[in-house]
């Protein structure tokens, strides 16, 4: 019996090796393990055997049958793997991608970082009352910022907001103190267009109000924000500045990333780039927002999202951002 089985196995192996088509292998399969195969007849002959032989050969034949099935399956697998490719697997199509506006991308990035620091993202109206755009922000009637040449005044007595700082007042009114908000948004200045000037651009405002807030907290927020945006260590420094809605007011510079602070044309050889207007919230502004300046202090900052996007993506003409030119915008993809 053993002999017979091992001879069958040899035959099978040989035939399987020779076979090259799936159909042939399937034929071989039915020849050796099918209903009419030798193995099957051996199995059916078991019933005529003695109990001893049944035990002895039963297991042997069954195992051999399994082994044969295994051999066929393996041969089928090898054939599959060695099969010819029936299509051109070297085709390489260009992907067509949609794109988000660079300001959207950088705005998302920045608000995400600020959210990690506990800021709420708020939005405000582009057409704004003079009260929210000026008066409440401690910009009196005679301030040069209210001159015709800087502000778009509208024939309904309102203005196109000149800064996102109007959100400071809205947020204080809506939420009260303590407060942590940031407000990205579009602002408008009456400027002639050139590669560096737009009349329509984006800013982001930030404001924190609590008991005992200091300028050093602002330094922390800004330094870490810039570090996360540019993925490198950024140094920041404060200079005296002047804004009606903060007191003290500070200009915040960041170390020039192009020259690393050594001095280059971009930073006008100073090693620093003016980046953020900031300061401690002016008591009159706190009062306008219904918050007691004797109890709370706060800091506020604002900077150009458009400008940051230009720096980050090395965009050298601001006008493309409002052009809607797909040839240009498609480079920006989604993140």
């Amino acid at each position: 019996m053993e002999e017979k089985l091992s001879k069958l196995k040899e035959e099978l192996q040989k035939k399987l090796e020779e076979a090259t088509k799936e159909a042939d292998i399937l034929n071989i399969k039915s020849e050796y393990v099918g209903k009419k195969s030798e193995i099957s007849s051996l199995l059916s002959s078991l019933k005529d055997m003695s109990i001893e032989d049944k035990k002895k050969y039963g297991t042997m034949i069954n195992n051999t049958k399994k082994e044969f099935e295994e051999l066929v399956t393996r041969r089928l697998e090898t054939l599959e793997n060695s099969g010819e490719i029936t299509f051109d697997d070297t085709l390489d199509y260009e992907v067509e991608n949609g794109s988000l506006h660079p300001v959207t991308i950088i705005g998302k990035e920045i608000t995400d970082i600020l959210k990690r620091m506990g800021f709420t993202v708020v939005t405000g109206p582009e057409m704004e009352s003079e009260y929210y755009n000026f008066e409440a922000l401690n910009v009196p009637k005679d301030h040069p910022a209210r001159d015709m040449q800087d502000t778009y005044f509208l024939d309904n007595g309102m203005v196109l907001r000149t800064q996102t700082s109007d959100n400071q007042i809205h947020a204080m009114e809506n939420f009260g103190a303590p407060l942590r908000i940031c407000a990205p948004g579009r602002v408008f200045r009456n400027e002639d267009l050139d590669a560096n000037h737009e009349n329509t651009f984006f800013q982001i405002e930030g404001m924190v109000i609590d008991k005992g807030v200091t300028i050093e907290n602002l330094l922390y927020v800004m330094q870490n924000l810039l570090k996360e945006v540019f993925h490198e260590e950024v140094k920041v420094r404060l200079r005296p500045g002047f804004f009606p809605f903060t007191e003290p007011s500070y200009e915040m510079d960041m170390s020039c990333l192009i020259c690393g602070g050594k001095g280059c044309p971009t930073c006008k050889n100073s090693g620093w780039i003016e980046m953020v207007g900031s300061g401690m919230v002016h008591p009159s502004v706190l009062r306008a927002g219904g918050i007691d300046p004797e109890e709370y202090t706060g800091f506020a900052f604002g900077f150009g999202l458009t400008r940051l996007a230009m720096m980050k993506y090395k965009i050298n003409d601001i006008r493309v951002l409002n052009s809607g030119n797909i040839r240009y915008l498609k480079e920006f993809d989604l993140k």
Partner: protein
Amino acid sequence: MLISCNKLKSHIKNPEDIDWLNIWDTFTLRTAEVEKVTIMGDKFDNVVVGEIKECVAHPNSDHMHILQVDYGANEPIQVVCGANNVRVGLKTAYIKVGGHIDGEEIKARPLRGVLSNGMCCSGRELGISDDHDGIIEAPDDWVVGRDLKDYLPVRDIVVEIDNKSLTNRPDLWGHYGIAREICAITDHELLPLDILEIPNDKEDLDIVIKDDNLCYRYTGLKIENIKNNKTPLDMQIFLFYVGMRSISLLVDLTNYLMMELGQPMHAFDARVVKNIEVGTASDGDTYTTLDGETRKLSSDTLMIKNGDKYFGIAGVMGGLDSEILNDTTSVFLESACFNAASIRRTATKLGLRTEASARYEKSLDPNMTDLAIKRLAYLLKESNPDMIIASNLTDVYPKRLEEENIILDKNTLSIYMGRTLEDEEVVRILEKLGFKVEVESTYYNITVPTFRATKDIKIKEDIIEEIARIYGLENFTPKPLKLDLTVTEHETTYNEEYEVKYLLASKYNMHEVHSYIWYDTDLLKELNIEKNNIKVLGKEANNILRDDLSLSLMTIVKENFKNYSNFKIFEIGTIIENNENKRVLSIILTDTEKNMENIYNDAKTIVKYLFKVLKNKEVTYTNNVNESSYHNDKLGKIINIDNTKIGEINVLTKACTNKLSKKKSVVMIDIDFDKYVKLSKTQVLSKEISKYPEVELDYTIILEDKKYEDLEKVLKTFLSKLIRSYRLVDVYENKYLIRYTLGSDFKTLEQKDLQTFKERFIRHIKENGLNIIE
């Protein structure tokens, strides 16, 4: 503003201790932004004092002379010179052969056939003044052969400070104020100014202020017997270095004082002054200013009047008839203080911003007008020892600006600074800046000098700023806010906008664009569209605010048709509708004219998808009767959620589309994003699914002269317990492929169940008059 370090040094005790080249980085951090530091005086070398010994006319020229110049060598040397002030005995600036001006070497060379060894120079040739009327006329006591730089302050450091960063500091619009800052920064002592005390023993001048809200103070003085009207060379150089033209001693002195103290002054020829009145002009009057321009005046223009005639525009510019002339020997000096806003308005209106108006509009200290006059008198007397003070120092000052006190409690200072400073340090900083400080146990009582009080220092926070900046802002270190786990307010708008943008860009390959809040009026005209909405004042074109976002995107669509025939863009932006801000999402799909059907159907699918995945809401469309001229009036659809309108889909009319590009189609989607944000997401609930498999059955139904909405009505009335869902899969010509999904909660469907369903369905379709492919 340009600042001369030589001038600063003259106001500071022991100025040599200061590194004048490098102090300016610190100045930027402490006070105001320095834009440029320029070293002056290295443009020429080998220029010495020379004396003209002989002077004869050049034989081949009608204006040149041949000079013999003694420059300290053994023999005088021959120089040819074209200046008209050459004369024997004149001491002047002589540049030797081999010397340089602006990098160019001076060589001996013939001029019209006569050899010239070196050159006699004018101020302009040396780059130290504007003067080119003749060669430099040096004082007689200068020693021949000495380097010119030994006598004249040619070597200097000139610093340019960003005017914008001085907006809030009227005290820094003169060198003396800058010197005070340098003293505070470097802990030096500021020297007092030399002045001439004016005895009060003569007559007052006739000066009247008509409006003391517009003119706070007017100080006048008459001086006679001024014979020398020549500006000393060192003053000429200073004025040149700080960007002023030298004209005559009297004019130069007023400018010098403006550069020194920041106080604009005016010198009138006293012969024409009768009486001075400061008051507003009459509407429609005109006046010719010094520059020869005739200006139109209005009732808010503040004027200086002399005997009923206009004499100058207060704080901006004087007139021709009061100009100092060559034969002027007596002057009427004006040193006044005007309302800053009024001066700014006038200067802006007239388009005439002068050095004087730039200073007045910063809110100058009225308490310095008399100091400036006394200082000018002192300087005038140096070159005119015989001058006569011909009047009292006449001072009209109706409302005196008094010093005010501010209480700064030490606790507030510590909170703002994030640290506690020693009393001595606070006092030192403030006193150097001109404040007076009384130290109490818990607070400081601080007296604010009036030169800081007009604008800048009003409240205790302003004082903190002063202390912080001189203390050194670089000493502040970043500190995180303390742990606070309060849940902040939830505002979804920004995030929801982002979600939608991301979805459109990622799933549908759309491009996000930004467009202006106003219509492109040229394009509106081209498209023959009339729009009435809020207007931007003072803007000629593009001045109508948009009330239709997708229409305003047509500018961008037109631009992109130049490069693409089909593209997809979107914007979430603000429109102004019924006088209110409104956020709108607009999606624009474009393609060729023949593909309009595709993008139209895409539009409907996109909107459906958007609301399904982000809000779990079903969109339904109803027909829109369009009123706007630029939308196709048959294809408008209203987008509804829960039977309420939330937006529209429109097709731009053929006429308009053709103006953008020929043979194209434009589909525009507008969704009210304010409503979108308010729409809460329908809760998603998980459903039990049947354990038996589902089966899909496809039917193709032929529609003749009918639309899908007709078919849908028929499908809706076909009821069976087996129907899980049905949907439109494909349309080819008039053949609509509908796919039914069937199933049961109780059993696996058998062939006979499906057969029964099929027979019933076909009968239903046919009974409703439609054809079905069996």
